[in-house]
């Protein structure tokens, strides 16, 4: 009786009899506190686990950025007050008693910030949360194809995070070679302090992370393709589900390639091979025994994951935004099929552009041209989506609540960041922009802020589905406007200093005549970043406050949405629906399409001779 598989096909037990767990919800896995809240196999609980773990990491990752922003904005200020938190990483001058941030630790902070935000927050926290919450509920399944694997996916993520967390407390510090972990910094312990135990733990942590993503992704794909309820054709799936599906496919195809790169790094670290090492000097000495490899090879393997990874981050946000914009503008999504096909096009193209991160690695300019071409083509499906989002809210009966505002904010950010992508995608322009703050501005706006906005839109929208209560709207709006303005204030000026040539990943600039003139801008950015950070704390307060004290959800379908997650009881148990799983009869966007009905849910049969929407 060990495995309860909620897959209906699988309710037969090993020996043919059913035992005591015949009923489909309140199964024995929910009988104790530990099973219900810790090792839960209920996708809804796992979603919350991903979300709250992601929030934990977001605070840490963002907190780190505040520390290194202080360094960048106020390099000469006394940091002794941070010593209680950072200990030995603040070097105290014995005479004056004033403290400076250790340069090694500055790099560790930047590296950890990138790793944490990209992988733990925007991959696991975003896709993990919403894929888990919405896939079974929106396709009409009692749970994932394999709830056990789903639970393991979370716990591998947890393990991965625990290892990374431990690495923060190492004597030699966490890994400090950048979130992309390029060799030789990721391979040679003698290269820097962070390349010692910190790098080892970084690799181990990320390997577990890959396992988590694969376990989760396999489950998401299987559930979507095999466990949809009756009538839920592919083209009746909400765009969220399409986005999660393609996200999982991207992950399944690209993360193993990253794993292979990490495996080779591990070989180099442990077995003394030289896959990625050649002609290296450390502290003035040539490493004569480690030759024959190629560091560029690693970059290829990394970015073959790395570029799809940025779409792994943004596609779920796009799905969420499509859904939220449509529901709260009370209009069907504009161009449903175009949206689906542009997701597919983005997915295919995302595998053909990775070398745009390597224009400056000495690659053949003719090959670079091919990558320029594909990179610029990706702008087409992206533009289709932007156009359709705008057309969706155009003339709608828009409810300007926090969820919708964050969705609009997403579109705004995606446009701003996408435009700079077009600059960077041209290999000739990239000669100037590569490794400057222009790139930092580009990807923080298009990926960092945009994905966060998508996540916030999803949280405000589906909070009732998760906790049976609403989040506070006033705080939500303060959160939105402050973050929108603040994020532009942080990343807008970075375009400018980036175009002026200021390089990323520098500890301080006052030693360079060309860059030292931007001190005021850097101070401005730092202050804006601190304000934005405080606003996110406001969000977290709102989140936990609303969890216990928020306005209670009284109707099953508070937003007047059409999708299946709102047909399950407010306090749905494991198994989601009390009776039969609802059947689906129409597409998910019948909003304001009928004279007499404001919206029609997916479960309602088509009228005699009626054509389903979406064609």
């Amino acid at each position, binding site marked *: 009786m060990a495995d309860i598989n909620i897959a209906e096909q699988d309710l037969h037990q090993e020996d043919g009899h059913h035992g005591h767990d015949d009923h*489909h919800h309140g199964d024995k896995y929910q009988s104790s506190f530990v099973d219900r809240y810790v090792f839960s196999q209920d996708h809804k609980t796992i979603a919350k686990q991903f979300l709250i773990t992601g929030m934990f990491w977001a605070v840490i990752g963002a907190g780190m950025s505040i520390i290194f922003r202080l360094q960048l904005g106020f390099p000469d200020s006394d940091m002794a007050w941070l010593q209680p938190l950072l200990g030995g990483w603040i070097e105290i001058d014995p005479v004056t008693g004033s403290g400076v941030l250790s340069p090694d630790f500055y790099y560790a902070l930047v590296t950890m910030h990138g790793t944490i935000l990209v992988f733990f927050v925007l991959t696991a926290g975003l896709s993990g949360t919403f894929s888990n919450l919405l896939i079974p509920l929106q396709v009409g399944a009692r749970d994932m194809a394999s709830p056990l694997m789903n639970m393991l996916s979370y716990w591998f993520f947890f393990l991965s995070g625990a290892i990374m967390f431990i690495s923060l407390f190492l004597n030699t510090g966490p890994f400090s070679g950048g979130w992309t972990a390029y060799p030789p910094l990721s391979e040679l312990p003698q290269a820097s302090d962070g390349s010692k135990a910190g790098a080892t733990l970084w690799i181990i942590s990320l390997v577990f992370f890959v396992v988590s993503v694969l376990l989760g*992704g396999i489950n998401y794909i299987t559930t979507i393709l095999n466990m949809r309820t009756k009538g839920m054709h592919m083209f009746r799936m909400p765009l969220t589900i399409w986005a999660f599906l393609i996200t999982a496919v991207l992950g399944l195809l690209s993360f*193993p390639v990253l794993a292979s790169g990490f495996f080779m790094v591990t070989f180099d670290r442990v*077995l003394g091979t030289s896959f990625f090492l050649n002609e290296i000097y450390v502290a003035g000495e040539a490493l004569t025994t480690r030759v*024959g490899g190629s560091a560029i090879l690693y970059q290829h393997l990394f970015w*073959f994951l790395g570029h799809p990874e940025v779409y792994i981050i943004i596609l779920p946000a796009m799905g969420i935004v499509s859904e939220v914009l449509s529901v709260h503008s009370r209009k069907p999504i504009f161009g449903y099929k175009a949206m689906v096909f542009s997701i597919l096009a983005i997915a295919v193209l995302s595998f053909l552009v990775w070398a745009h991160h390597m224009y400056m690695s000495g690659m053949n300019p003719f090959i670079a041209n091919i990558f320029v071409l594909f990179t610029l083509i990706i702008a087409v499906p992206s533009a289709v989506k932007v156009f359709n989002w705008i057309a969706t809210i155009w003339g709608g009966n828009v409810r300007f609540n926090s969820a919708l505002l964050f969705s609009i904010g997403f579109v705004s950010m995606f446009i701003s960041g996408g435009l700079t992508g077009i600059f960077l995608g041209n290999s000739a322009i990239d000669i100037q922009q590569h490794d400057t703050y222009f790139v930092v501005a580009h990807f923080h706006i298009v990926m960092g802020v945009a994905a966060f906005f998508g996540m916030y839109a999803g949280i405000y929208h589906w909070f009732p589905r998760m906790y049976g209560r609403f989040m506070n709207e006033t705080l939500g709006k303060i959160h939105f406007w402050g973050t929108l303005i603040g994020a532009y204030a942080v990343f807008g000026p970075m375009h400018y200093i980036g175009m002026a040539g200021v390089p990323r990943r520098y500890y301080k600039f006052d030693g360079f005549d060309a860059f030292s003139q931007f001190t005021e801008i850097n101070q401005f950015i730092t202050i804006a970043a601190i304000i934005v950070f405080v606003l996110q704390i406001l969000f977290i307060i709102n989140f936990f406050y609303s969890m216990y004290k928020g306005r209670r959800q009284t109707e099953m379908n508070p937003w007047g949405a059409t999708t299946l997650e709102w047909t399950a009881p407010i306090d749905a148990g494991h198994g989601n629906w009390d009776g039969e799983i609802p059947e689906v009869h129409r597409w998910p966007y019948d909003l304001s399409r009928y004279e007499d009905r404001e919206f029609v849910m997916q479960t309602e049969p088509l009228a005699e001779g009626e054509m389903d929407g979406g064609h």
Partner: protein
Amino acid sequence: MITEITGPKIKRIHPKKFALWMALVSMIMFFTALTSAYIVRKAAGNWYAFEIPKEFFLSGGVALVNSVLLHVAYRLYKERNYTIFKLLISLGFVLGVAFVVLQYLGWLALNGQGVYAQTNQSSSFFLILTLSHGLHVIGAITALMVSWIYAIRPSTTAWTEKRQLRLELTFTFWHFVDILWIYLLIFFWVQQ
């Protein structure tokens, strides 16, 4: 209760089988990445070609036989022919272990030729590919062990749908690692 909620069955591929195929796709990507890196690196020159020891070809044969045995075993199980089924699955298990031993012996032979992991990029790649594959085989052996225990324990030999599925999944994975090795072998042989 269960029949009540099951509703009309839609004929689809079993989710677990589908999930396995997905997992195989990710493994294929893993090995594709490594072999692509191999090709790229080899094209750059300074590539030391060595003789592939015969043990690796022998293990190729073992892999083929193993796949055939397991395939027949599955057929027999479906026909409820348990006696020969048990024999074949036991043999398959032994061959699986023999495969790993042969790979290990192959590496000892390479060491005998003076080829070690660090000798040249060619041997490093040979190691990373054989080792990655070997780890997958060890996974497959673990899975096979479970099916094998079910098969020989008298109380759990008899056919059930679930046991058949377990066998099918295990054997599919075995066919995958077997074919993968044959592929890698041909790859090495052509590339060396």
